[in-house]
């Protein structure tokens, strides 16, 4: 078996890579569905119907995609610079903590100021959480994957302490949750019905902004240069450490905004089940988007549809909801393969 680079990769071939990956993932999960005894077309039809079958379903799918757009962007920016931030989950909660600290009555501003203010403090908190890992990486070459992963657990325990202890809402009837975000800080709903909120607009704006930054700004150029070849970037006069640090702060900031959006937009208050692994799913989103900030939007909507749809599917027929997580994991692996196959070709003779 010989793997050799294709002489040229057409836009179509590159663009179709994630589509092939998704089809491959769906085909592999069909094996599991077959095992449950349900007919495969029925199961996938129910999944599709659950995600897009009604105005309510579409509303729910878009709502669920908001945190995934943010965490997907966070991962896409970081991975572009080969900074492997696997801590979006922790940074999301850091943002949620900031939104709770400042948003539950400490400061009251009119909504026009309050919402941006909460977004900014959330982003700062998310970025702040990455300062230690990124400095350890640039100064002492400590692997950021492990440090960011371990910090996820630390932050989650901190949240657990705060909402069971000092921040516990006395009105919550014993449930461990923090006080509600004040009305001025709540992200208003976009439609009369359903849970879709302003977070979607902010997430879409963030995608476009990050795309423009990566594409047109000097910083974006530096981030890409550092990612392609850090040695060459350093040689050409780019301050690699500085670029990696800025990348990390942007990445953490985006993940932090996911936390604000979930706290101030969807739930209204901080709980321990604020995120069912949005930080980790963000990795799948970014990979399906091939690290393209605009590609993050459809990728997030697709994976959100998988979650929302499989909830509906498992209610209707006897398939464990974990099928959605399997699909997410498989699609990460499948997209790695399909992107490689779009750039390389395999020849079977020796």
């Amino acid at each position, binding site marked *: 078996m010989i793997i050799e680079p294709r002489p040229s990769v057409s836009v179509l071939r590159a663009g179709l890579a994630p589509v092939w990956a998704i089809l491959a993932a769906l085909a592999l999960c069909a094996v599991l569905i077959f095992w449950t005894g349900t007919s495969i077309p029925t199961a996938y039809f129910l999944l599709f119907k659950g995600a897009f079958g009604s105005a309510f379903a579409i509303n729910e799918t878009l709502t669920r995609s908001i945190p995934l757009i943010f965490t997907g962007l966070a991962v896409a920016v970081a991975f572009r610079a080969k900074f492997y931030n696997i801590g979006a989950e922790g940074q999301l909660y850091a943002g949620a903590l900031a939104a709770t600290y400042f948003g539950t009555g400490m400061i009251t501003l009119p909504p026009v100021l309050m919402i941006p203010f909460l977004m900014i403090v959330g982003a700062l908190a998310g970025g702040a959480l990455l300062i230690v890992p990124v400095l350890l990486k640039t100064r002492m070459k*400590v692997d950021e994957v492990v440090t960011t992963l371990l910090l996820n657990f630390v932050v989650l325990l901190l949240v657990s*302490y705060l909402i069971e202890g000092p921040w516990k809402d006395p009105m919550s009837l014993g449930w461990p949750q923090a006080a509600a975000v004040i009305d001025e800080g709540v992200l208003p709903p976009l439609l009369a019905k359903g849970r879709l909120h302003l977070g979607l607009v902010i997430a879409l704006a963030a995608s476009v902004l990050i795309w423009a930054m990566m594409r047109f700004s000097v910083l974006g150029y530096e981030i890409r240069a550092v990612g392609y070849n850090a040695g060459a970037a350093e040689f050409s006069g780019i301050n690699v450490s500085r670029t990696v640090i800025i990348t990390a702060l942007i990445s953490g900031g985006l993940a932090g905004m996911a936390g604000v959006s979930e706290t101030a937009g969807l739930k209204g208050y901080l709980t321990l089940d604020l995120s069912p692994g949005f930080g*980790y799913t963000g990795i799948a989103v970014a990979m399906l988007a091939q690290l393209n900030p605009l590609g993050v939007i459809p990728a997030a909507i697709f994976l959100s549809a998988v979650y929302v749809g499989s909830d509906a599917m498992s209610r209707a027929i006897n398939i464990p909801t974990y099928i959605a997580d399997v699909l997410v994991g498989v699609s990460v692996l499948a997209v790695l393969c399909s992107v490689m196959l779009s750039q390389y070709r395999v020849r079977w003779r020796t």
Partner: protein
Amino acid sequence: MSDLFEILLTAGFWAATIRIVSPLIFGTLGELICERAGVLNLGIEGIMTVGAMSGWMWVYQGGGLWGGVLFAAAMGALFGLLHAAFTVQLGLSQHVTGIGITLFASALSYFVYRMLLPLATTPPKIEPFDEVAIPGLSDLPIIGEALFNQSPLTYLALLAVPVVWYVLHRTPLGLAVRMAGENPVAVEAQGINVLAVRTGAVVVGSALMAVGGAFITMSWFDAFYFGMINGRGWICVALVIFASWQPGKALAGAFIFAGLEALQVRAQVLAGGFIPYQFFLMLPYIMSILAMIVMARKTKYPQALLVPFRRGERV
């Protein structure tokens, strides 16, 4: 403070340390073997979950305990093979593949568990491994009970350390594995197939990780819970760095870590009311980060770690 020292003299503390250390030894050795061959295996968290679920499930479905351990190891090896196919044979990103394997393997474990036991609300139990006392030694005060009256899997873990050390450092095979992680071109020049060596190392390492997971459900506890691995895999990755890729130091590191964790559980009782329990639970993760910082200046990564090898391609 004197209370803390008293804890150190109780047999319960040492028994807990040994219990906590066993899965860490398996996981750390497994990761160490992979990384020595030049492959970072971030699938460890998921592979330990697979091991925990499959070993337990084997026994629950009526299989023997040792059969369960073997089955867990085989499942781990299978996911190791998947990881190796991506990272070694195709040369894809080791970071992303590893995370993908973890997501896939954990989700698949949960899916299979729910599929086979759809209605279980309280996790069903199995009859776990019994302690086996080593005659004579187990009568020693304090440590006798802890060290020499343990589950056979713990003895297996302790035995695995010198075996892995011997194979890695005293056999031609081990030399090939270590060279594959340092200078794969030189290995290839010796007529040894780098891809085969790396694949083998990842498969064996992953099997060990899975046995570590199986220890948790088959010896430590007697049931499988969701989220049961809870970051132990990541802690093993940190321990490998702390141990500078040496099996002996890995054992020492795992013991220090497990000792502190066992102490933490007991200190939690002492400090109950003063310090919230969450801060004690944070300690293992913070200690792992600190351990990496402490060793950062001294660590000598395997030179070819994370570098895919493509035959005939110049580096």
